[in-house]
């Protein structure tokens, strides 16, 4: 068909535009904040580094604070959006999001445990306190991963994973962790309560190169797997049996998606707290504009997810400057209306 070449061109164009968007947003993010640095100077710093004494102050801000923050935002946003697209494809349900695999619930519970019980435990054991900060992200990551593994175990019988069981068990497990988290909230003091609230709304505020270095190897696998997973997910859109008929190793695909998502989202939650909405809205918005074909959708989601989260972070920094809003509030407040607008504009496409 003549439209095959045109299609490939449209796809390349979409990815090119999104890449340009990512670069522009990154430049903006590095320049914006308490100290404004114009894009030209940002480029100077990035190219010539801290060697030039005239640039020293800006270089400090750019290289030590804003660059790791921007990179972390790109990474976490890309990871969340791709994870969302993968879960929607895997569950064949446009309402699925990364939280479905139990990561968020498990991570939230583990984080609440660390925040509320950590200091008491340290005091009880007579260890020198306070608890090192790294325990919280590490605990959240392990909590998310274990919740996913439990859920996966519950939904797998004789080597076959039932996505329907996983969906339902995920809701039950989510309610259970929610209740336990609530119990911990009930038992917490004011400072802990504040920590819990901020953590559950997310922030890129604590970004450091160490965090970027710790998060990259956990989120990168899901992004690198994107070119391999697209075809299988396209076939899966027809159904599991049909995907098998088309030569897809369905169980392996499911296992790979679930584990990649659990690790990536767990790492994202550990690095930046719980950031909702990105995994649900970004793939949807893209489907409305570029179509649901996964080989284009997944890389596009990675780019738009990163750009969206970094942009939200910029807004979070400047709206209430010098204070910072939790980023989860911004993603929802900006994302929800934009999403509704897209949805209503193309209502017929949303009919499943």
């Amino acid at each position, binding site marked *: *068909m003549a439209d095959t070449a045109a299609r490939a061109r449209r796809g390349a164009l979409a990815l090119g535009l999104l890449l340009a968007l990512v670069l522009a947003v990154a430049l903006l993010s590095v320049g914006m904040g308490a100290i404004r640095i114009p894009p030209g100077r940002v480029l100077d710093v990035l190219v010539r580094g801290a060697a030039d004494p005239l640039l020293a102050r800006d270089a400090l801000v750019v290289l030590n604070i804003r660059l790791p923050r921007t990179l972390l935002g790109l990474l976490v946003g890309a990871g969340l959006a791709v994870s969302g697209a993968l879960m*929607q494809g895997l569950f064949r349900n446009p309402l699925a999001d990364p939280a479905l695999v139990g990561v968020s619930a498990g991570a939230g519970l583990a984080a609440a445990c660390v925040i509320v019980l950590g200091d008491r435990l340290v005091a009880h054991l007579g260890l020198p306190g306070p608890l090192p900060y790294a325990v919280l992200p590490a605990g959240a990551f392990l909590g998310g991963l274990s919740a996913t593994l439990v859920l996966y175990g519950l939904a797998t019988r004789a080597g076959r994973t039932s996505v329907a069981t996983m969906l339902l068990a995920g809701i039950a497990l989510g309610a259970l962790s929610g209740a336990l988290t609530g119990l911990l909230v009930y038992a917490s003091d004011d400072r802990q309560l504040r920590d819990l609230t901020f953590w559950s709304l997310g922030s890129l505020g604590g970004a450091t190169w160490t965090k970027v270095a710790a998060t990259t190897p956990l989120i990168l696998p899901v992004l690198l797997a994107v070119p391999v997973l697209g075809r299988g997910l396209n076939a899966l859109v027809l159904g599991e049996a049909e995907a098998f008929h088309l030569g897809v190793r369905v169980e392996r695909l499911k296992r790979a998606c679930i584990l990649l998502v659990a690790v990536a989202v767990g790492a994202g939650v550990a690095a930046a707290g719980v950031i909702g909405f990105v995994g649900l809205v970004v793939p949807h918005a893209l489907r409305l504009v570029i179509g649901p074909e996964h080989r284009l959708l997944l890389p596009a989601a990675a780019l738009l997810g990163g750009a969206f989260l970094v942009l939200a972070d910029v807004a979070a920094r400047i709206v209430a400057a010098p204070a910072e809003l939790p980023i989860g509030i911004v993603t929802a407040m900006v994302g929800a209306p934009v999403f509704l607008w897209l949805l209503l504009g193309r209502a017929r496409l949303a009919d499943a």
Partner: protein
Amino acid sequence: MPEPLLTASGLAYTVAGRDLVQDVSLAVPPGALQVIVGPNGAGKSTLLRLLCGELRPSRGGVAYGPEPVETIPPWRLAGMRAVLPQAARLAFPFSVADVARIGLDGIGRGLKARDRAAMLERALGQVDVAHLADRSYQTLSGGEQARVQFARVLCQLAAGRTIADRQVLFLDEPTASLDLRHQGALLDAAAELARAGVGVVAILHDLNLAAAYADTLLVLDQGRLVADGPPAEVLRDTLIAQVFQVSWPVGQVPPNGQPFVLPRRNVADPQHS
């Protein structure tokens, strides 16, 4: 008789103590259209799923040529056999061309873009959906969706032909939602594939369609193969009465003796039934 493409021996499939398929042996020769008929719950779809490698039999085995089906990796199996499922719904608004193209994506990866485009165009034209290529699959009628799925299967066979020279096509009630013209067109296409050497196995409910198209008719009842052979030999009054439990008469169309089953109203008095 040419060497069969597929042989099944002593197939049985048991779930929760119920035997859905019992002791079925059959061969799929190249170039023939075989039709499986039987009442609801006879095990037709289960048999098809066993033959295409989707289910593992409880007893017995399926082999494509000399290879047991479970030893063939899925991607290679996908070049050797294609399956047209019963109605499928999509969760996302894929276009018609997107859906058909899925049939080319895996097996046809090594093909030139131009060849793939030609295969896609031919398949869409063959099932009369070329004019719908850019429409969203979800907005089509059931019959149109079924034809798009058939185009997807034709794409898979065309791509598969470049890596496998012996192919089997399974059709699970392919005509269920089609109008008469497209029922005929789909089964004509299947018969044409059979003439080109593909082994075709179809499940049909309409005995008259089955009689018109089948080279061999396989009758399944309660999981067992109770008759097989040319339609004219298999379709008899006694078989219709025993297997389908209706007393509809079997007649023959004069020129070539093609059998037909004529429905008859059964106005049994409730007091005597």
